[in-house]
């Protein structure tokens, strides 16, 4: 057949949202010839929902992406308009950075980065088909009929697959933000035997700033001292904007109740499964009747626009109800809607069909990342994107995949949750999903991951150098604190008294001084014992001293966890033949084929009893192999006799 071959690549990335950008950049930066396809180049790295990056658990993800050599953190640092650390005072494990982003600036900046990336082609087209041969990817076909050949594909189609927007009783085929949907690729995926799910999400209305009376709202300023996302960023801008807080009231709730029958969520028009953590306002009002008021944050979408985002007011009510609801809020009495709120339904895949490398179990070289895997959120998407990009390259190079486990990174928790546990609703990252939260902090993401990013060939030399320098400084400072003994003196005891700390009568190590909860690193300046070190270094040293006992405990847990992860399950195991497994466990294990006992233990429906059976089985198998070996040995001995 005469097909026009538009190009030959190592890696093709389908979609240029947050997952696609990271995947494409990772592949290209690791030296593979890469192309990224996007329905519309003006929607690269679009933020069709909230105009911010980071937040609890998500901020940690951004730091991890950055530590590996990703782009999201850097671009966010360049385009943020307000920044804040959440959870200050609740402990370093949950400090999370969040920034309001200028949406257009972020898009423009990210597009520029893609365009300038060596090894990377940026192309506008709708990918309609994934081409395979013998369960191995061969290339893609686009809507013009042109074929592109490649060795690996990363699908990052977000919410575009068969996208359908619903507003009240109106619904139409559409991608997010009124963009063109991708209507053909779903069928191609299904034809390859891939199981699809239908999920739903939504976004609130955008209001014109000039129609808002801010005097009735509470100002939400950013932090005075701004911390960047990226370990590469030295200088950051100041805050440029403030956000505002207002509340729903009885009147709002009355309007919602009165019009509930007109919500497609309740009339059954929407079948997609929505997330519990970002329910629409009608959901909240119905489910939590006792709450008389809900918070609504009003956030600018950027510097060069009057569009304001109404966080907390996501809805799929018809437009006339939306306007009534919104105008019942203090300060929004005269609000004019620029874009109405909508719900969107889309196809995504059942992620349990993936390996931990994000490669499909059944097709060689076909990777998936982002919302198409059933996650939600820009950061979750980007995190999967960078991993899929890395693993596509490693696959082509014939190297072992890079799998971060639950004790190494939030990224590991995210992917393991998706792939192992499966999902029933869009998945949001939360710090409470991470078992080793005290170790997986945002402040040490580089210490956890930069070496790994460097070893796979993604993190740059410059990043690596910074990481090594920081590490050395931390170690040196740690040694100094352990070695330096402060003799008792009048000054030191006066200093201690000032901070309500116990007096000393014999020498004390600086290290032990810092263990005291009331003594902070910067206090040491007063006794001339603080070194002039970067803030990040002081922070690391302080946390590892103050939380030493807890960190040690966490490390012990991690060691135990690793032992189970290291117990590999053979790929060819036939679970239906193992006596003692429950029927459910047999089915699930045969379907999902976990890579280790640890992974098996996290599959829902596999009970601790089933795990005991597996352990007994592995043990028996081991003994059998051993005794077979011995028997053969015996036989030989006999022959010799």
């Amino acid at each position, binding site marked *: 057949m005469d097909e026009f071959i538009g190009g030959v690549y190592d890696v093709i990335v389908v979609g240029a949202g947050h997952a696609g950008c990271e995947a494409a950049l990772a592949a290209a930066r690791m030296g593979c010839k890469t192309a990224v396809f996007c329905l519309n180049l003006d929607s690269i790295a679009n933020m069709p*929902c*909230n105009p911010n990056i980071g937040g*609890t*658990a998500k901020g940690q993800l951004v730091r991890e992406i950055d530590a590996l050599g990703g782009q999201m953190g850097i671009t966010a640092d360049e385009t943020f308009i307000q920044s804040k650390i*959440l*959870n200050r*005072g*609740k*402990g*370093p*494990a*949950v400090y999370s950075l969040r920034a309001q982003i200028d949406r257009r600036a972020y898009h423009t900046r990210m597009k520029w980065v893609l365009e300038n990336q060596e090894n990377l082609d940026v192309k506008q087209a709708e990918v309609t088909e994934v081409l395979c041969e013998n369960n191995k990817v061969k290339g893609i076909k686009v809507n013009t009929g042109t074929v592109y050949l490649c060795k690996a594909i990363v699908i990052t189609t977000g919410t575009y697959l068969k996208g359908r927007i619903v507003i009240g009783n109106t619904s139409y085929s559409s991608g997010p933000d009124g963009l063109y949907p991708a209507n053909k690729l779903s069928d191609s995926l299904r034809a390859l035997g891939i199981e699809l799910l239908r999920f739903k999400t939504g976004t*609130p209305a955008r209001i014109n700033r000039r129609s808002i009376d801010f005097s009735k709202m509470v100002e939400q300023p950013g932090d005075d001292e701004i911390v960047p996302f990226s370990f590469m960023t030295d200088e950051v801008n100041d805050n440029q904007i403030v956000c505002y807080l207002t509340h729903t009231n009885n009147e709002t709730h009355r309007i919602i109740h009165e019009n509930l029958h007109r919500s497609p969520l309740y009339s059954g028009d929407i079948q997609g499964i929505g997330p*519990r*953590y*970002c*329910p629409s306002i009608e*959901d*909240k009002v119905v*489910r*939590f009747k006792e*709450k008389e008021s*809900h*918070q609504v*944050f009003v956030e600018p979408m950027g510097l060069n626009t009057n569009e304001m985002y109404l*966080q*907390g007011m*996501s809805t799929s009510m018809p437009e006339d109800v939306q306007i009534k609801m919104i105008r019942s809020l203090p300060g929004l009495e005269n609000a004019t809607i620029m874009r109405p709120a909508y719900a969107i339904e889309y196809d995504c895949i059942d992620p349990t069909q993936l390996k931990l490398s994000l490669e499909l179990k059944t097709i060689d070289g076909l990777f998936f990342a982002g919302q198409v895997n059933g996650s939600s959120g820009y950061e979750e998407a980007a995190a999967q994107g960078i991993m899929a990009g890395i693993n596509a390259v490693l696959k082509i190079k014939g190297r072992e995949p890079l799998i971060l486990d639950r004790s190494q990174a939030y990224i590991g928790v995210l992917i393991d949750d998706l792939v192992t546990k499966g999902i029933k609703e869009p998945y949001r990252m*939360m*710090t*409470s*999903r991470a*078992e080793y*939260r*005290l170790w997986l902090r945002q402040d040490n993401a580089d210490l956890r991951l930069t070496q790994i990013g460097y070893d796979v060939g993604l993190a740059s030399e410059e990043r690596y150098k910074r990481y090594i320098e920081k590490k050395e400084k931390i170690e040196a400072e740690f040694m100094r604190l352990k070695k330096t003994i402060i003799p008792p003196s009048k000054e030191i005891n006066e200093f201690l008294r000032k901070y309500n700390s116990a007096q000393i009568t014999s020498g004390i190590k600086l290290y032990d001084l810092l263990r005291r*909860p009331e003594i902070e690193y910067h206090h040491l300046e007063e006794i001339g014992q603080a070194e002039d070190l970067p803030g990040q270094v002081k922070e690391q040293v302080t946390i590892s001293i103050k*939380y030493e006992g*807890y960190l040690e*405990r*966490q490390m012990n847990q991690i060691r135990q966890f690793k032992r189970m992860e290291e117990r590999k399950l053979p790929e060819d195991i036939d679970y239906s033949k193992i*006596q*003692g*497994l*429950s029927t459910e466990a047999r089915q699930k294990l045969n379907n999902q084929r976990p890579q280790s006992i640890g992974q098996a233990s*996290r599959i829902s429906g596999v*009970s*601790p*009893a089933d795990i*005991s*059976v597996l352990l*007994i089985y592995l043990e*028996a198998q081991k003994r*059998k192999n051993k005794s077979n070996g011995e028997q053969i040995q015996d036989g030989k001995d006999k022959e010799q006799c």
Partner: protein
Amino acid sequence: MINDTIAGVSTAVGNSGISVIRMSGSDSVSIADKIFKGKKKVKEQESHTIQYGKIISPETNEVIDEVLLTKMVAPRTYTREDVIEISSHGGYSIARSILDLLYRMGARPAEPGEFTKRAFLNGRIDLSQAEAVMDIIQARTDRVSKVAVRQLEGSLSNKISNIRERIINILSHIEVNLDYPEYDDEEVSASMAESETIQILDELDKLIDSFNFGKLLREGMEVVIAGRPNVGKSSLMNRLSRKNRSIVTDIPGTTRDIIEEYINIKGIPVKLVDTAGVREAEDKVEKIGVERTIKALEGADLVIMISDISEPLGQEDQTILSKIKEYNKPYIMVFNKTDLIEEERRLEEIKRENPKALYLSVTEDKGVEELEDAIVKYATENNQDIDNQVLVTNARHENHLRRAKSFLESVLTSVRNNMTLDIIALDLKASLEELGSITGDHADEDVVNAIFSRFCIGK
């Protein structure tokens, strides 16, 4: 590997007249036919019926015992395999020879707990049931097996699920605050965490205490009879055990070593220990005996401090009492030989002086029943209403409970020292994991679900 046939004695050896020999596996029936002679061949016997017959050695044609044979065909059996049970009342050595015969006919000795392991592997029971069954096998008295049965029915699981639920509640209040900091109306009050944790700790303490009692039931309460020479310790021992193992003479210092006896007082298993009387010993052998007595006191769950009513309390009694107090042991003060006080009035007077003590005459068999009651009362009262309480009988469970407790204690410390929420959450979660190890639940999923169902959050 799993299909071979195993055999073992399934009742605890030496505890009762009847031994049950159990065999499980696909060859059980054919092996039984080789050694059993009844009206019917075992092969023809209906499933779940009992048949009377003789065990005859096919090698020597010697009749070994008369027995009852129960046949149970898979899958409606304990192990889900073919099971044969042979009840013999010929005592341990006969049971042993029947078993040896089975081994020679093709069965293999069962490893400890292997029947249960098969039941478990064949999907007949789950892990915590398997552990409860292990305890039933070891159960020596009715009371223990009642506890074990109830555990089978999940009363421990219920109790622990309940406690977990409460911890999840505290934790979800904290977690929602950490994951949704903008969330306004659930201000985590540390005082809520504190007061709840205190209550939960109380519940855990009860469960842990119940284990001590469970252990006491399983292993027997160790009751040590102590007193100076010649007060009647050995006589009491013999009376309580209804045996004549301890030598009784009127020569002080007769008992020179420790004598132990397992007895059963109204359903409570007791390990009774007779000791050498404590006095300044001249004799070398006796000296060692006295040292051992003091050692025995250390291991006692309860001491019966016995004295001779006809003689005043002396230095030797004081020595023993002070040892008991030093080891912090509960004890029952007993005055023996009340028959030697002839005047009724005098006796009443003494009793009034020492109303908490018990008075008995072993030779006239007076007051022994009261002493038995006192022992039972101590065992049960100290351990509350055991018939209605959930008992922890498994050491693994107890270990998890203890660890859960220590994590919750550090929650309290953290709250009181104003530690950050992430640290408090860490300990709460750890305690949840420990409890989940008993019931087989995972913490994280539960907490995430609790957050979504209890709190109104979102964009």
